[in-house]
């Protein structure tokens, strides 16, 4: 598999096959982030496609000082939050947890009633976080990016990031209450 830095450099030279390879490598991660923040499969796919179009259009802005993966996440983070803001401006949205009535990944992967309940509760609690905090939790816990990478992606200091993560963790624990033990 080609190195993401090489692929992004080839995108800068207008090589569309490099973009296709980046979609292949990062499509899943970008889509997961979009789905986590937007809470709707259709909107997540729309936002994910926008991320890669924007990546293509702005590839020349990448100077190589940040790792390509971090750069891609940065474009994804801002694009996805822009989608959410546009949606909020257009209408008053119901809580994200109630937006997608179709069986989602939560329902598809449950292996037992207990596990299903835990998954549902986490999904519900996550939907109560603000969209930017939801993205942070996703990047830190699920994608397991380092604090340094996330700070670079969101453009915040490490100290601010730790504070926001600690607050998000605290809120999740409060929302989960006793169900925290189900995790």
């Amino acid at each position, binding site marked *: 598999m080609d190195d993401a830095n090489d692929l992004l450099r080839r995108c800068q030279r207008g090589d*569309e096959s490099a973009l296709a390879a980046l979609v292949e490598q990062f499509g*899943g991660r970008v889509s997961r982030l979009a789905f986590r923040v937007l809470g709707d499969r259709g909107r997540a796919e729309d936002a994910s496609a926008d991320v890669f*179009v924007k990546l293509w259009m702005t590839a020349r802005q990448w100077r190589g000082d940040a790792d390509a993966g971090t750069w891609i996440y940065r474009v994804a983070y801002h694009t996805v939050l822009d989608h959410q803001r546009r949606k909020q401006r257009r209408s008053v949205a119901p809580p994200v947890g109630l937006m997608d009535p179709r069986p989602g990944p939560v329902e598809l992967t449950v292996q037992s009633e207990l596990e299903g309940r835990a*998954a549902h509760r986490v999904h519900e609690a996550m939907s109560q976080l603000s969209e930017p905090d939801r993205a942070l939790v996703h990047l830190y816990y*699920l994608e397991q990016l*380092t604090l340094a990478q996330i700070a670079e992606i969101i453009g915040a200091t490490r100290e601010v990031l730790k504070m926001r993560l600690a607050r998000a963790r605290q809120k999740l624990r409060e929302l989960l209450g006793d169900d925290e033990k189900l995790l």
Partner: protein
Amino acid sequence: MNQPNPADDCDTIAQQLFELRDGSVDAVTEVAIRAHLARCAACRAAFEFDTRLADRLRADSAPSPSGLATTVRGRLRRRRRIAAIAYATAATVVVAGVLGIWRPWAGNEVAIVESNRPAPTPPADDVDVAALFEPPPVDSLDVLARQQSGYVVVLNRMGKE
């Protein structure tokens, strides 16, 4: 940043747990954090929560959409088409401007269209589009004006389409 915790307070530890997990904490601070965890049930619970939450989120993550590459390709094609139309329109405007103002065929006549001579501006619907395809005017400003108006009408129609 990764300093020992003389105060040893739970708020500080709660934030340092993120560094402990991602391996960016220095050895001295790590010892201090682990010592705190050994005696503080609340912070230990937070640390264990982090582990369980990470596992849970990974188990429930959504599959990636299959048609993403196709969607991206389609959107790029559409952007290129729009850009091509915009370039063509801009080029047409430039050419129309050059032909209308420079008039290289006008010999030694004054090259700039006389500003004190009001150009006839017929209503858009009555413009003779065929004037566009006439040979370059030799000395008639009327034909030139009709030609310019014709470009405007054609550009407007392109825009509506």
